[in-house]
Each structure stands twice: as structure tokens, then as C-alpha cells.
């Protein structure tokens, strides 16, 4: 096995194309090292262009190799994309957050990956480049193939960054999860919301819950239900019923029954919508 730590993107792309499918991209390796290792690994974690969080052209750009710890403590993310900071701080344990990356979280394609759930609620777009030097931009939710399989083939394509529209006046976001214990536990359910209020009514909303399907799942019916509604007790009650009713989930002996998980989807979606809406209070500047 070979392990190459690259210092330029060009070097990374060249070594991937030279290995013609036998090399794979690695970042924190917290997921990859638990799987069958490929012939060679190309480590991106030293590439300056994919390890920064910055504001660019009115968007928040989050490098794919930004760690969960860095994202959770970034003042930009905390101020303008709070759901992501909360999602990242829920991952594993301090050790995992210190080396695990946002890009790895997305490409590993676990159905309830915490950062990915937050990103999808925020409407994040992924910027990718392949070995032919072609770039593309894709909504994060469109990168999933099936359970734990991404459409992105990391032997040919590199996720460079994630772009998020900042939550400004009248907009807020939030993430929450429910697990057996408070660290080192995959969630029974996690949920995230982004909401825009105008005159106290919901104008735009994205509600995401997982694990429901292979990809973190938007709850479209529930989103429609809250449009033009105030986020009050009555709406939240209806959101809870609607969200639980909208999903079909699986149960597992290790985590919880399907019925309980479905119930939790309702509770968590209502909670996370409420928190996001409180943060969207136009009196405050965003999250």
C-alpha cells in the first residue's frame, strides 16, 4: 500500500489518474480505515485551498477537508450557518472531530451523517473536480447513490468545497439529534432546519431528517404545510404529526424500533424548526 500526502491539487489529480482507479482520496481516515483499504491513498488534508472556511461572493465556502472541530468553532459558521456548527459538534468524540472532515462525512454517505444532514438543510452545494479537470456543482442531497455509497467516486473525483448561502436577516437554522448516549453514538434520529420568516410567517423552509432513506431526507409535505404559517404551538403540533407521518423508517435491535424512530422524527423536526425560527427573529441578524 502507498500513502501520498499531496501539497497541490494538481499533484492529487495526477496521482489519482496515474493510479487509474486504484487510489482513493483520504482525509481524516476515520471512516476509510474501517473499510477494506485500497491499493493507495492520496491524502488531501494538507491542501490549503480545501481546509479553509471563508466568505466569497456572498457565499460561505467550506473546504472539504475542514475538520468538524474547525467547523464547529468557526465564527462565520456559528453566525451564519448554525445548523452546521451544531451538526459538526455532535459527531463522535473530540478525537474524531479533530481529524474527521466535512468532505469525508458527505462522501462516506452514511444515511444519518451529522454534518451532511446539517448541510442539506442549509441547501449546500458541493463543488467537485475530476481527473479530467472538469468541475461541477451539485446539491449535496444529489450526491447519494444508496446506503453508505456516494455517487462521487473518490478514485476519480475530489470534493473541493461546500457552498452555503449565509443565514441573514429573517433566516435561521438549527440541528439536533437523539442518541443512546451523548458521545460516540450514532443517532436514532437527527434533524435540521433552515427557515426564513417574513412578518412572522414562514416564507422559505427546508426540513431534513435522517436516517430515513439512503440520503438525509427533506420532508417536503411538512415544508409545504408550514409555508405562510407562523411557527407557533399549533403549527408545531401539526408539524410533529406531519413529519412523523411523512416518513417510513426502519427499526434496529441496536438503536430503536421503527415506531419509536418515526415518533422521534416528528418530535425532533418540530423542535428544530422552533429553534431555527427563534433564531430567524428579524430583530436579530441571522443565526
Amino acid at each position, binding site marked *: 500500500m502507498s500513502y501520498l500526502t499531496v501539497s497541490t491539487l494538481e499533484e492529487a489529480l495526477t496521482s489519482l489518474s496515474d493510479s487509474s482507479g486504484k487510489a482513493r482520496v483520504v482525509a481524516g481516515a476515520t471512516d476509510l480505515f474501517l473499510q477494506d483499504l485500497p491499493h493507495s491513498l492520496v491524502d488531501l488534508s494538507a491542501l490549503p485551498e480545501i481546509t479553509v472556511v471563508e466568505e466569497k461572493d456572498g457565499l460561505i465556502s467550506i473546504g472539504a477537508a475542514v475538520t468538524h472541530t474547525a467547523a464547529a468553532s468557526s465564527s462565520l459558521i456559528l453566525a451564519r450557518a448554525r445548523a452546521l456548527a451544531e451538526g459538526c459538534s455532535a459527531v463522535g*468524540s473530540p478525537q474524531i472531530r479533530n481529524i474527521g472532515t466535512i468532505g469525508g462525512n458527505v462522501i462516506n454517505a452514511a444515511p444519518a451523517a451529522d454534518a451532511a444532514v446539517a448541510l442539506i438543510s442549509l441547501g449546500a452545494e458541493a463543488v467537485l473536480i475530476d481527473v479530467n479537470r472538469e468541475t461541477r456543482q451539485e446539491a449535496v442531497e444529489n450526491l447519494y447513490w444508496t446506503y453508505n455509497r456516494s455517487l462521487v467516486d473518490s478514485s476519480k473525483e475530489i470534493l473541493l468545497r461546500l457552498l452555503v448561502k449565509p443565514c441573514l436577516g429573517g433566516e435561521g437554522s438549527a440541528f439536533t439529534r*437523539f442518541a*443512546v*448516549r*451523548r*458521545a*460516540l*453514538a450514532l443517532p436514532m434520529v437527527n434533524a435540521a432546519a433552515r427557515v426564513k420568516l417574513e412578518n412572522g410567517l414562514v416564507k422559505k423552509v427546508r426540513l431534513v431528517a435522517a436516517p430515513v432513506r439512503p440520503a438525509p431526507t427533506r420532508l417536503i409535505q411538512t415544508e409545504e404545510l408550514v409555508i405562510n404559517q407562523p411557527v407557533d404551538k399549533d403549527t408545531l403540533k401539526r408539524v410533529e404529526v406531519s413529519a412523523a407521518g411523512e416518513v417510513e423508517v426502519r427499526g434496529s*435491535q*441496536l438503536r*430503536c*424500533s421503527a*415506531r*419509536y424512530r418515526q*415518533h*422521534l422524527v416528528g*418530535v425532533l423536526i418540530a423542535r428544530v424548526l422552533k429553534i431555527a425560527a427563534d433564531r430567524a427573529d428579524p430583530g436579530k441578524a441571522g443565526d
Partner: protein
Amino acid sequence: MILKTPEKFTRQFGKAESKGYQSPEVWSKVTGKAVYGIDLTLPGMLHGKILRSPFPHARIKQVDTRAAEALPGVRAVLTGAELENRPFGIAVEDELPLAADKVRYIGDEVAAVAAVDLQTAERAIKAIKVEYEELPAVYDPVEALKDEAPLLHDNFPGNIAWQREVERGSLSAAFTEADLVVEERFTVPAIHPAYLEPIACIAVNDPYTGITLHTALQSPDAVREIVARVLKYPLSKVNINGPVMGGGFGGRVYGNLKVYILSALLAIKSGSPVKIQLTREEEFTAGRPMIAAVIKMKMAVRSDGTILGREADIITDNGAYSAQAPWVSKTLSERNDSVYRIPAIKTRVRLAYTNKVPTGQYRAYGNQAANFATESLIDIAAKKLDLDPLELRLKNCVREGDTTVHGLQIGKCGLAECLQAAAKEIGWDRKKAGRGYGLSAAIHANGSLVFDKNFRGASALVRLELDGRITIFTGEQDYGQGTHAAFAQIAARALDVSPVQVTVESKQTKTAPFSTGALAMRQTTVGGKAIQLAAEDLREKIFKAAAELVGEPVAMENEVLRSISGQELELAEVAYHYHSATSGLRMTGEGKFVPAESDYDESGYGNISLTYSFASHAVEAEIDQATGELIIHRLVAVHDSGRIVNHLTARGQVYGGAAQGFGMSCFEGYLFDQGRVANASLADYKIPTALDLPQIDPLFIEIEDPAGPYGSKGLGEIVMVPVLGAVANAAADAAGVHVTDLPLTAEKIYQALAGWECEL
């Protein structure tokens, strides 16, 4: 020392600080220097690996080891067919070193290999071909007791490994007189002690010295005897040499006998040292967790809260082989009866064989599982009678001078004080709205007078070294619970020296005095008493020798040895004087602590222990009504363990034991799928993390008990016991409903709140 040492490492502990004395062993652990069993290697050492059954129940038709033997690097292959078919066991003889004709659980040992490295050993295991004929299996202990259930062991009809029925007082009278009868069925899953270091053993076979096992055990002497018996070696040709132990919690009292016996057999067969180390998965699938239990319990109460009687029908789940499960079942079924003055008791307990992982013991020996049931039932009764659960407990709790329903003689007893202090500290009289409060009470023995009637006590040697320092020789093991620090303090106090002058040696069964082991909360009370006696014996010898040396009487005062005329003497001088006078001996004090025999009778009635420790815990909790999540805010742990020898380690015991209690209450438990352990990793078998623990406040009611050294009693096991009842009662108080199936997960609590049919 030539190297200058930073001041913080040379801090001396005088008397004033001695209650917070920390033994140097702690430093080597926290700085990563300690050498554990898994770290050890020896020159020429081979690696052993065990082939395990993939079936829960099957007949072995054929084992073909030829391919494994042919692999380069393989030095020994062992199968059950090569071994004498003579079962061994701890409480019940039902195990063979390797299965000969039948496997009884997924993980049962079928063959073992030793090879030059682990990879080769693993490859060799895979190369062994076993032909099985699958048999019907039974997984549920209640099912296992039915007539039609498949039989695991031909010589244990009805799948009963052990059973007991006992009645004391008149239960029918109790139930006739009762104003209220409460009844519930409680279930507790199998629990793994989850010590951090998996069990590892290097066996060395030497024609001159015999077998040496390098492995850390809580009861090396007991294991040594079993290994010698199985191997048919003379006892003096088996020695256990203990490296630092990475946690035990009862799980390493006998550890994993298969590992010790198979590494020894492989060492004998291959002629080289052999190391077997369990993987974490093997720890879960073929270790020795504590038994699961189904406890049906019924209690008769008068309307004023007086407990009149209690009846229990208990089925414990043995798994495929017994280890200590019969003893654990016994403690589980009766120790709790002595917390309160209960005039009539009737208990039936049956230990059932099932096709699952065999079981052993865990800290508190099932007393905590029973605490969950009995203390829940008390709160259920209190609620029905509209009585304060604290008052109900105070009305019934045992007190000094009592003889309990099973004949335990209660000496010094601060149980009522513990209850009052726990309630006061948690805010029983000013409960916060929206919060639930739970109390519980416990008793636990301090060593056993009846477990082995010939070994009721302990012995120790305390030696004066030539440099004036002190060495204690004891068979009592320390694996983090602080026993050796306490021993150093006890000897230091008897000798009037600083505890830093004292070193404790316990690692070699060949040279250490015999001990029944680090179990049954006996070490401080029983082991410590022997240390005190040995140190006092040495002190007299020192005085005698010193007086000879200076020609006048001497005394020790404030750590200085002085003659009546004021001449100061170094302990080293006295040591050397004795050494030369005897041409080489070192002055040694002997301590033999032999408690009087108990009146314990055939029916199990009588006093079983020198004295008893008591505790009451109180919990403040909250429930998220929407999810069922149990949020525990605080645990107050009040203990009567006599005078506390070392507050630092005592608090440490409470924090750790409470954490394990929370684990068992809310998180842990084996999950099975057709006999296969479904959560055989620390990722899936969820012990609580630091974030999951509430504030834990230890309090000690320091009632001096003359039974133990300097008024002290045991603490190590009882710390876990009352957590279960207190958590369950606080949860029930907050939820308005009792969940009777451990662990108390959010899902189960929510199901109870929502009135769902239980799906788990």
C-alpha cells in the same frame, strides 16, 4: 538519586495528608508507564488463538486439523479429542477445556493453536475443518426450564444448573395480615464488566519450576488451584505472576479459565511460551458477563408501611456453562432481604442453562439487580399507601443489634443515618417541580465466613528492609481500587511511619500469602486487619531488637524511634542489627486474622460475614415527556463504610461504582439474536461516557466499626448497589410509571408513557 527530581514528585505524605495518600502505582498508570498483561512478550513466545463454535448448539462430528498443522509457523494444534473428558468448573463442574462432542453456544472453544505470530495462528484456526450437526437450541431461560426444551447437559436434567428454595417465617401469615400486596416482574439483562484491558495470559512451561501464568487476576490463588487440578500438576508447580491489571470489577476474580488452561496446554504441547489474548469481541461473546435475571416479586405490607413478608420467584440465565453464576444467583436472591426487617421470606431461584455465552460475576454479585427489583417494589407500595418512601424505609430498615431474616447479625449500622442524609442532601423536603426523586438502600457483606469455611480471614507478612523501609507481602490484589494504598496506610499507622515508606508486594502466588481474593468486599476489612496485625507484630519485634541494640526500652513517636534516655535510632540500624545477628534474615511481622466460625446452618441461615456495610443513594431526575429521555441531574451516595481509610480512593470508588450503576440502569445490557451477541463491541455495547453521568456527590457516615482495621469497613462493591433502585425510583417518580425492564432506555420509558404495547 543522581537526577534532580521536581518537587511535586518528592512530596512526602505526613499523617495529616495520609487520608488522601496516593500510591505510586497511580502515577505509572496515568503516565502510561504501567506494564499490563496485554503489553507483555517473552523471548520465543508463540501466539495462541482459539477456534470457536459458529453454532449455538451442535454435535461435533469430526475435526480435521491436518491443514492447520501443515501451515509453516504453526507449532501446536489442540483439540478436545486429545484431552481427558473430565469436566471442571468453579461452582459446578460442567466445562471442558475444549468441547469434545458437543458445542453449546456461539463461541464455545473447539480447538486451539499456537503459532509464531498472530496472523499465522489466525490462518491456522481458519484451516481447521469441523463438521457439525446442528441441534435445536434454547435462548430464553424461562423457555429452557420447560419440559420440551432442548437439553444442554445430559447430567443436568431440566436445564437446571443450580436451584434453591428457602422459606423463613410464615409467609402465608404475612399475606393474610397484609393490607396491601404489590407484585411485579423485573428483568435484568446480562452485563459485562467491560474492563479496558481484555484478558491476556502468557503461559510458560518449565521442567523445573512448572507452569507460570503471566496474567492479572483478582483471585490468583483460586485460579491456580483450578489450573493445577485440570492440568494434574502439583500445586507448587503452578504459579501465577500478575502484571498490572487493566480493570477487573469482579470479572477477573476467575477471569477466563479457558484462556489460562488453553495457553498452558499449548505451552506444554509446543514447548514454548504461549500468549492468548482475547479480542474485545471475544470478551463479549466468550467472556463471563454477569447473569441476566427475571425476578417475580410480591410483597405484603400493612397500611402503616410495615413490611410483613416478601416472596420471590427468580430465574437466572446461566448461559451454556456455570462459572460463578450459582453463587451470584444466591446473593442476588437473598442479600437484599436483609436491608429491611422482613419477618417472612420465601424465595425460589433457578439457574437455567441456555445456548448463550456462559456467565460469571460482576461487582456486587447481583445484589444490584435485586436492589432494582426490591427498591422499585417499595416505592410502588409507598405510592399505593400514600406514604413517604423515605418514611417507609426508615420504618423498616435494619439497625444495630438486629438479626435479619437470614440470620445476619447486624453490628455497627448507619443505614438509617444514610437514608436521612441522602434524603436531606438531595432536597427531599423541597422537591423541585417537574423533577422526580428516588431513594434506595443497600447492605453488603464484608468478606464471607461461609464461602470457604476454612478460609474466613486473611494473613500477611510485613518486613523491615535493610534500608529501614517496609514491605508488605499479601495475596490481596490491587487493580485500581486502592487496596494497596490503604494497606500501606494501615501498616504505616501501626508502625508509626509515613505510608510512602511502605511498598506492597502481591504479584506472585508462589511467595505471597494465600488469599481468597479481591472479592466480596473483604480486602480492607479482612485483608487490612491482617496487615494491621502483621505490622503490630513487626513493631514489637523492632522494639525488642532496638532495645537490645541500645540496652534500654525504646518507643516510636511521630515517626521517630527513640530510647527512653532520648537516643534516636534509624529503622535501618535496627534492621541491620537483626540481619547480622541472624546471619541474613530480615525482620518480619506475621499477621493472621482468623474470624470466629459462623453459626451458619444447612439451610443457609446464620451470620455470613464479620460485619456489613450500608448505603443509601438518592437521585434527582427529569423526564422529557416527548421522547422519554431520562435526564439524571444528581446522585447523592451516602455510605456507612466505617471510618474511611483514604478519602481520595473512597470517593474514586463511589464515582466509578456509580458510573457503572448508571450504565446498568440506563445503558448497558447484552442483546442477543438467536444466541448470537448482537452488540459485541464497545461501539454497540454502550457504557456511559463522562458526558452521560450526572453530578455524583459521595458522603460518608463515619461510624467506627471495631470489626475492621481502625474502625473501617468495605466499600468497593456496595457503591454500585443502590444506584439501580434510586435511578429506577427517580425515573418512576418523574414519569408516573415504573419501567421494570433494564436498562431504562428512553424508548422504554416513552412506551410506558404513551401506553404502547411493549415492542422490545
